């Protein structure tokens, strides 16, 4: 028996290479666990039928000595990332039966390392949501307390790892969709720098915000998976070459300063959540970090800016779903009614809502007041961050305002659910990397639920986040 509860990518690597167990044995253990748990949790929408073949090929690669950090590592993939020949639906009915014609760049990279793809993970439809309640295929439950949400939109990716159904997974983060669920499930979630990981083969939500990120149990694993998927790609012109952003120089040799914008923590944060955050800050001080109270004067507008820019981009990106090229087609009297019916019935409620909001903020008469203003304010917020990073090396915030909430608790009020993203959207607005790391737990309704602390660093300074994260978790 393989004890997967304590297994990490890092420790599995050693055991696979020393033949303590084979990839096939490891993968079978995961498949058993998925069999036992997925019916209740609904993390996976599909388990691929070639998992054991993939595992055999990885075993052969190991025997040949063709070993990479991800060789034979079983992972889950969010339903909006393409794997050639496999179904991908972005959690939507409108993509019913869609089979990916090519591999996403991240998949291509992982295939070249002989990673094993177990299946596709549930998500909020087109990544619109913070709870996976917007999936057309049912909510993903939190493995730590099945009456609660796993978070979202990468809820399936995160729950698959949290329930012991994968060693790691890929999610996507447009406004917090990797960090919020990892915080809710006690895992590590990284949102890489915008343009740090290719989105070729990722279904677009907000193109100026989207990035693919790893979901893992440890910071060490996060670095391994990030390292495997990152890099410039000619298929995604927003990816950058290594010389675009100045590198943080040998941070390990000097004492680092972490900034905390205390002014935005004053309201909206539960007492026990604030206490948990303050304890984390104390821990950082003990670890030798200097803490500095900083001001980010316009950060309070991030959420409003985000909920203008993201729907605007989403409404444009989702125009391609027309019942002609792929997916669902509902027949009407003429071409126009084909469109109206296909999109009306194929898209779920939240998607319809955001397309309408996006259409509104981009329409004549409102463009200047909403979209254009949001673009300017986005730059102002970025300038604030840039200024802050001249004084501090990293910025710390709680990942969320509270622990995982009950299924249905926020389902009737879309705005309440949007407010969930208040601490995570700034990193997407500015494009900087951010990581969520488990920071202990709070008791809620008699259950201990995990919380996360989030660190942000300047563009292309993921290494700094890993360094702080490893120290924080004692890795």
């Amino acid at each position, binding site marked *: 028996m393989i004890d997967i509860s304590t297994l990490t990518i890092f420790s599995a690597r050693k055991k696979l290479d020393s033949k303590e167990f084979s990839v096939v044995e490891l993968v079978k253990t995961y498949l058993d666990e998925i069999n036992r748990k997925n019916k209740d949790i609904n993390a996976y929408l599909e388990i691929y039928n070639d998992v054991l073949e993939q595992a055999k090929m990885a075993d052969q690669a190991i025997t040949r000595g063709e070993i990479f950090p991800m060789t034979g590592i079983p992972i889950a993939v969010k339903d909006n990332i393409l794997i050639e020949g496999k179904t991908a639906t972005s959690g939507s009915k409108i993509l019913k039966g869609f089979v990916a*014609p090519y591999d996403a760049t991240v998949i291509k990279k992982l295939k070249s390392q002989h990673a094993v793809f177990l299946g596709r993970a549930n998500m909020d439809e087109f990544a619109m949501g913070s709870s996976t309640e917007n999936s057309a295929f049912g909510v993903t439950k939190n493995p730590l307390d099945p009456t609660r949400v796993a978070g979202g939109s990468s809820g399936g990716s995160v729950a698959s790892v949290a329930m012991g159904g994968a060693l790691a997974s890929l999610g996507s983060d447009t406004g917090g969709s990797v960090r919020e669920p990892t915080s809710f499930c006690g895992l590590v979630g990284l949102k890489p720098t915008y343009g740090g990981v290719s989105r070729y083969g990722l279904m677009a939500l907000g193109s100026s915000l989207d990035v693919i990120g790893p979901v893992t149990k440890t910071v060490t694993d996060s670095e391994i998976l990030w390292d495997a998927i990152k890099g410039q790609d000619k298929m995604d012109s927003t990816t950058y070459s290594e010389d675009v952003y100045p590198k943080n120089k040998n941070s390990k040799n000097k004492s680092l300063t972490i900034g905390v914008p205390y002014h935005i923590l004053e309201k909206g944060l539960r007492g026990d959540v604030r206490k948990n955050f303050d304890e984390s800050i104390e821990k950082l001080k003990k670890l030798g970090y200097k803490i500095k109270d900083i001001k980010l004067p316009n950060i309070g507008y991030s959420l409003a800016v985000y909920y203008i820019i993201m729907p605007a981009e989403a409404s444009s990106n989702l125009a391609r779903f027309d019942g002609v090229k792929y997916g669902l087609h509902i027949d009407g009297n003429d071409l126009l009614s084909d469109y109206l019916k296909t999109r009306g019935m194929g*898209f779920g409620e939240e998607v319809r809502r955001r397309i309408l909001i996006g259409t509104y903020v981009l329409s004549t008469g409102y463009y200047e*007041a909403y979209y254009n203003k949001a673009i300017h304010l986005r*730059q102002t917020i970025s300038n604030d961050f840039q200024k802050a990073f001249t004084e501090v090396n990293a910025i710390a915030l709680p990942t969320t305002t509270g622990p995982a909430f009950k299924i249905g608790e926020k389902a009737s009020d879309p705005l309440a659910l949007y407010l969930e993203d208040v601490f995570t959207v700034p990193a997407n607005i500015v494009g900087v990397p951010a990581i969520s790391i488990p920071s202990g737990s709070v008791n809620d309704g008699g259950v201990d639920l995990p919380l996360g602390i989030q660190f942000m660093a300047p563009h292309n300074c993921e290494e700094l986040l890993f360094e702080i994260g490893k120290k924080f978790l004692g890795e």
Partner: protein
Amino acid sequence: MAITKEDVKNLADLARIEIDDKETEKMTKEIDSILVYVGQIKEVKVTSEKVVLKLHNVMRDDVVTNAPNQYAEKILRNAPAREKSYLKVKKIL
């Protein structure tokens, strides 16, 4: 009210999404509260300075980079309706 029922109906037409009356009503309320929230930025003063972006357009020569029919069949197989190697739609004119 930032938005009316008629506005929402019009937006739905523009976005090619069919919604019924009941949903239009519900959407109007919800979208209104969201627009009121995001509308807070309307009052903010921002300076519109020019910013030099770090990333630039990536161009390549306009030449065929794939083999003949490398993707065509895979893409067409996803289409709800096709005729030979064409996507099939209803008559437009």
